[in-house]
């Protein structure tokens, strides 16, 4: 579904992604892990076409078609959807009206849009927040649930989630994990999920894990094994392991 070929990406004049090859197939959930500043977020933003992330070389393919030259709007229309790590606060923009506009943009007539929103807001327990301004005064868990809800109602085939689990308590973690799992249980969907802590791994069924360090994917493998190794030894172990390989 998604294939990155030796991707090099610049952000703010600095090369952040230094040659990444990555493949994600239908039905898969890939975990992307790595220390702060390793380029995980930049990679997801580059995949969705954020214009701030400039592709210097390499290529991106989605459904076998090259999307390197496409704008974010075009990529979103093809079925890529990014849940931000830090979505902005939008004063005066109610969560409900934003969600309904997204659904209307997807072509839902307004009564059906209301139904879809009702379903997702129940799933993520967002009912009481719908009439608040988006992200204004939301707690950590609420902000993550709101962001996941808006990303899911976009109905992306490739779900890109940037740390949906950071700053989230245990209950919210289970809620977020089950919503993601449920979403991915439909055919033809896939996801890349950045997790800094690995906490979410207990609540979703990942097919592969990748560790990114300094703009490169240095290790890929079985998610269960890798998450427990990292949780025990930290990314320091990956750094050492990488040196050993070199």
């Amino acid at each position, binding site marked *: 579904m998604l294939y990155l070929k030796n991707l090099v990406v610049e952000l703010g004049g600095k090369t952040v992604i230094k040659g990444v090859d990555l493949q994600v197939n239908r039905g898969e959930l890939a975990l992307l892990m790595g220390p702060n500043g390793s380029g995980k977020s930049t990679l997801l933003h580059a995949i*969705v076409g*954020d*214009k*701030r992330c400039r592709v210097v070389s390499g290529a991106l393919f989605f459904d076998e078609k090259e999307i390197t030259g496409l704008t*974010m*709007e075009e990529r*979103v*229309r093809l079925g890529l*959807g*990014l849940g*931000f790590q830090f*979505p*902005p606060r*939008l*004063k*005066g*923009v109610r969560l409900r009206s*934003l969600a309904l*506009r*997204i659904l209307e*943009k*997807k072509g839902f007539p307004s009564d059906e849009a209301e139904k879809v929103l009702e379903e997702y807001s129940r799933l993520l327990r967002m009912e009481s927040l719908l009439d608040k*301004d988006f992200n204004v005064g939301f707690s950590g868990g609420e902000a993550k649930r709101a962001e996941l809800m*808006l990303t899911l109602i*976009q109905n992306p085939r490739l779900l890109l989630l940037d740390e949906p689990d950071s700053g989230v308590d245990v209950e919210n973690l289970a809620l977020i994990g089950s919503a993601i799992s449920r979403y991915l249980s439909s055919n033809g969907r896939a996801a890349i999920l950045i997790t800094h802590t690995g906490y979410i791994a207990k609540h979703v069924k990942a097919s592969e894990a990748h560790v990114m360090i300094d703009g490169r994917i240095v290790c890929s493998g079985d998610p269960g094994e890798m998450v427990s190794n990292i949780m025990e030894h930290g990314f320091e172990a990956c750094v050492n392991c990488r040196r050993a390989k070199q």
Partner: protein
Amino acid sequence: MNLEEARRLLKPKAEKALAKPAPHGLDLNLSVFKLGTGFATGVEGSERILESVGIDLGERNRSGSYYQVDNRAVYASARHSGLTVKPLSEALKDPKNLDYYWKAVSVNTDKYTAAAFLGEKEGYFIKVDDGVNVDTPVQACLLLRTPGLIQAPHNIVVVGENSKLHVITGCAAMREEAGLHIGISEFYVKKGGTLTFTMIHSWGKEIHVRPRTVAHVEEDGVFISHYINTSPVASLQTHPAAHLNGNGGRAHLSSIIISRGASQIDVGGALELSAPACSGEILSRTIGFDKSITVARARVAGKAPNVKGHVECRGLLLSNESRIDAIPELEARIQDVQLTHEAAIGRIAEEELIYLMARGFTEEEARSIIVRGFLSVEPTGLPENLAKYLESVLDNIAASL
């Protein structure tokens, strides 16, 4: 005392002030305008623009109406017991109504009030008797049709004790030619009364606008004003004031200023919290387009114990050639007051645009969502249909960027 005597007493003061500039805004030479009745006799042909400023000529959901074209009253109606809606000239035949005549606004405030007094022709007089709740709004339409004219309506609104009134005023110009609108508005809210006053302006790029508004609010009275300017003007300067003179009075002034073209706009608001336990707030949202220059002022004075006042001025620049100045002012005269302000001016954050584009919106749609959010000011105190109407006006502004 009759009207003639009242005017004779005020005349020398006004004459002395004819050359007195206003402290803010572009200073105008009044001699280039003429103060006559104007040639227009009706609102025909202006239905669409009046609808855009909240006037429903079918009078649905309205308990009364007043239409003035240039300086002539062309229609007045009242359909609620205890409610009076009349042309000012008619209302002033009753000497009791002189109690409200140039009592809140002084004729010698500046050259504009002086000129309005000396050339006074007409305006609306709306009064609600004590203990009457007029739940659907009264509408007033002030239309400027004759080029080169000074339109100077003198408006008086009186809300009796424990009464409630909603007024919506729509002001518009039909032509692109120059003109000057000086609206004098005197509002009197008696003990326990509530007045909401919603005013929407749609002038033209050659029209100068100088409204002069003062509200007097008695004990436990409430004065709520929502003002929206939607279109370009040559210049607009106004600084409406609410004097809270009785215990527990409240005021809320909000203004939404869309500055387009080469508009020179200076809009303020003032609250005088002069009695114990009074409170009030001034909110403003300003959007600067094109080469417009806008000053957003707000001044709250706390002069009695246990009063609270808050100012919130926000500006959004949508053009590098436009300019917005926000000038919040607080004045405390005694210790036991709580006065606060916040002011912020910025442009649309790229981060917000990119976020919304990742949600599937085009850049234009993303901008419009952000601007609509910026314009969101709670339609405090308004009945549902008026609040909805106001929301739709703001939706249209955001969608028409």
